[in-house]
C-alpha cells in the first residue's frame, strides 16, 4: 500500500502493462525524454527505451493513424493526445476509422489500442484546452470510454484498457493529476464497464464522473450534514460499456436521480443516462431527473469565471437540496 498521485498512477499503470507485454508501446508528443507535458509518463522512456516510448512530430492524425495501423497488425499501442480538445484535429480516426474497422471488415480487423488524453477544466487554460469531451467519444459506436477519478482506478482501468481487444479512450483529468490516493502493491487490473457506489445513501442518487466525483462526494457530506439528505454517490468510471445495472439499481432504491457533469450541457453523458432512467426506471422515480452541468458555453480563462462555470460542491448542494425539498 502506498500513497500515489493520479499523475504517477498513470505511469505506474502503463509500466505494469509494458512489463507484461512487449507489444505495448507508446507514442505521443513530448512523452519520452520530457516525460509528458503533464509529467504523467515520467520514467517510462528511461525504463523501456526509445523504441517503446516514442516522441512524435505535432501530427495528431499520424499519431492516431499509426497507433491504429500498429494495433491492426499486432501491437498494443498507447497513444497520447496531449489535451483532449486536440481530439478534434484527429477526430476522423476516432469517429470513422478505429471505431468502424472491426464492423466494416466483418471482424477481420480490430484495433486494440488506448488513447490517453488530458481532459477537463479547472486549470485556467481557456476555451481550447479545458473541455470535458467524454461525449465526443461516447457518442461514437465502436469505441470504449473510461474516465477514472482516483489513482487506484487509473492503474486498474489502464490495465483493463490496454488488455482490451477494442479501442479505448482513456480520459485523464488534468485537475486530478496532483491529487493523491492509496494504492495497493502489486498488479492491479480493473474491469471496464463497472461503476462504483462510493457512498451509499437512501434519498437520492448522484451520478458523477472524474473531477465531479470528489465534488459530488463533498456535496453528499454537506447534504447530509446541513439538509438531512442522504445521497448515494456513484462514480460512473466507464461510459462505454455503461454499468446501467448499478445506476438503475440505485435509482430503484432512492427514487431520485441527479447527474453531475463537467461537460457543457447538450448531449452530455448525463443526458444519455437520464434518458435510460426516464425509460426503464420511470415508475421508480419519485420526482424529476435533474442534470447539474457546466452551462452550454465555451470555457472562460479567468479563474473566477471558470470556477463559476464548472459544477462545484456548493452548486450541487444548492441544487439538490432545493429540488429535494420542493
Amino acid at each position, binding site marked *: 500500500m502506498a500513497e500515489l498521485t493520479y499523475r504517477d498512477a498513470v505511469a505506474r499503470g502503463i509500466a505494469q502493462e509494458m512489463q507484461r507485454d512487449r507489444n505495448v508501446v507508446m507514442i505521443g508528443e513530448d512523452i519520452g525524454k520530457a516525460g509528458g507535458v503533464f509529467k504523467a509518463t515520467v520514467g517510462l522512456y528511461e525504463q523501456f527505451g526509445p523504441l517503446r516510448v516514442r516522441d512524435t512530430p505535432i501530427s495528431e492524425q499520424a499519431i492516431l493513424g499509426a497507433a491504429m*495501423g500498429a494495433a491492426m497488425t499486432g*501491437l498494443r499501442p498507447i497513444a497520447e493526445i496531449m489535451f483532449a480538445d486536440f481530439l478534434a484535429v484527429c477526430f*476522423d480516426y476516432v469517429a470513422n476509422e478505429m471505431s468502424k474497422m472491426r*464492423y*466494416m471488415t466483418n471482424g477481420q480487423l480490430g484495433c486494440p489500442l488506448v488513447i490517453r488524453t488530458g481532459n477537463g477544466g479547472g486549470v485556467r487554460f481557456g476555451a481550447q484546452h479545458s473541455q470535458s469531451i467524454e461525449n465526443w467519444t461516447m457518442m461514437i459506436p465502436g469505441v470504449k470510454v473510461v474516465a477514472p477519478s482516483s489513482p487506484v482506478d487509473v492503474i486498474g482501468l489502464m490495465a483493463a484498457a490496454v488488455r482490451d481487444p477494442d479501442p479505448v479512450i482513456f480520459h485523464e483529468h488534468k485537475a486530478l493529476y496532483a491529487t493523491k490516493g492509496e494504492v495497493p502493491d502489486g498488479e492491479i487490473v480493473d474491469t471496464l464497464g463497472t461503476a462504483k457506489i462510493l457512498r451509499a445513501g437512501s434519498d437520492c442518487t448522484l451520478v458523477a464522473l472524474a473531477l465531479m466525483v470528489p465534488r459530488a462526494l463533498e456535496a453528499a457530506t454537506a447534504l447530509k450534514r446541513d439538509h438531512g439528505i442522504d445521497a448515494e454517490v456513484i462514480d460512473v468510471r466507464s461510459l462505454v460499456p455503461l454499468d446501467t445495472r448499478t445506476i438503475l439499481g440505485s435509482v430503484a432504491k432512492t427514487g431520485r436521480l441527479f447527474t453531475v457533469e463537467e461537460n457543457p450541457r447538450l448531449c452530455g453523458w448525463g443526458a444519455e443516462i437520464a434518458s435510460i432512467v426516464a425509460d426503464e426506471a420511470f415508475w421508480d422515480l419519485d420526482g424529476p431527473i435533474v442534470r447539474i452541468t457546466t452551462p452550454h458555453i465555451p470555457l472562460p480563462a479567468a479563474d473566477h469565471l471558470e470556477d463559476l462555470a464548472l459544477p462545484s460542491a456548493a452548486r450541487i448542494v444548492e441544487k439538490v437540496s432545493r429540488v429535494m425539498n420542493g
Partner: protein
Amino acid sequence: MGMEALEMASEPSAVASEGAPRNDDIGVDTRLELFRLQVEIRDCEKRAYDLFLQNMIKGTSHLSLGQEAVAAGFGVAMRKGDKSFCTYRGHAHTLARGAPMEGMLGELMLRDIGLMRGKGGSMHLTSVEHGVMGSYAIIGAHLPIACGSAWRAQYLGEKDVSVCFFGDGTTNIGAFHEALNFAAVWKLPVVFVCENNLYMEYTPIGEVTAVKHPAADRAAAYGLERILIDGNDADAVYRAAQAALTKAREGGGPSLIECLTYRHSGHSRADPAKYRPPGELEEWMKRDPLIVYRQRLKDFGVADEKIQEIAAESKRKVEQATAACKASPPAPVELLTADVFADGGWAWRN
C-alpha cells in the same frame, strides 16, 4: 493539364518510360502474371459496370478501368505478408493481391459471399488473409494507418512492407502531409503510391494543386527522392515497386511514387464524366495499359495463343464469380449487430 501530363508520360526523360523493349530483367513468367492480373481486373471491372447497369449493385462503386497497370505491377512485386492499404477505388488492388473474385464482386453486390458479407460494401474491401488491410473511404486516412503497420514491422523486426495506394487529389489533404513526414522521420518500411489519374472527383487536379506533379513535386518536402513513372505500363510500375519494396525491406525507409494514369470511366457509378475535355479520353485510350501490355508481350515474343488463353481463362473466371455471387443470399440479419466489439457483439451496457 490532361494532355500535358500525357505528353509527360510519353517523354522518356521526365518519366521512366518503357517504350522500347530492353534487357529482359523482368522475365516471361512475371510478364505473363502482370498481364493476367491486368486482364482479370479489366474483365472484372467491366462486369461490375454491367452489374450495376442491371441494378444488381447497390450503393456506390469506383472502377479502376484504365488504371490496371498500377495494381498489377504492385500486386506482382509484393510478397506474401506485405500489406496493402487501399481506397474506395480498391477493387483492382484487392484482386491483385489474390483475393477471390467472387468475394470482391459479392461485396459490391452486398451478398453473403462478399469479402465482408456485405457489411462494408464496395468502398471498404478487406481481405486480411491476402494482405489487404482494408480500403478506406475518407480521403487520406489510410496513409497514417499504413505508417502504423510499417512501424509494427520495424518494431518487431518483421520483413513485410506496407503499401498505400491513393489518388492525386489525396495529396492536398492534411493526413498526406503528416504521414509522409512521419514515415520519413521514422524511416518506416512503407511505400506510398499516388495514382495520378488527373482528376479528383470531377475537378481536374491541376486546378486545385500548387505544383504540377502533386506527389512527385512534393517528395523533397519529406527528404524523399522524386519518382514519377508511367502508370499505364505495368513493367514500369513493377520495376518501381520492386525498387521501393527492396529499399523498404532493407531498412532504407519510405518511398513516394507518382504513377501517371487515367481512369476511363467516371469517378463513380453516378458520374458520366462530362467534365473531360473532348479528345482526352481518346488520347489516353491509345495508351490503354492493356494495349500497351499486349504489345509488350508480343515484343518479347510471347505467342498469340498464350495471350488468348489467358484472356479466355479470365472470362471464365468472371463468369464463374458472377454466377456464384448471383446465387449468394444476403447475409443473415444477425450480422447487423455483430462484430462491433471483439466479443462478437455490440453491447454498450450491461
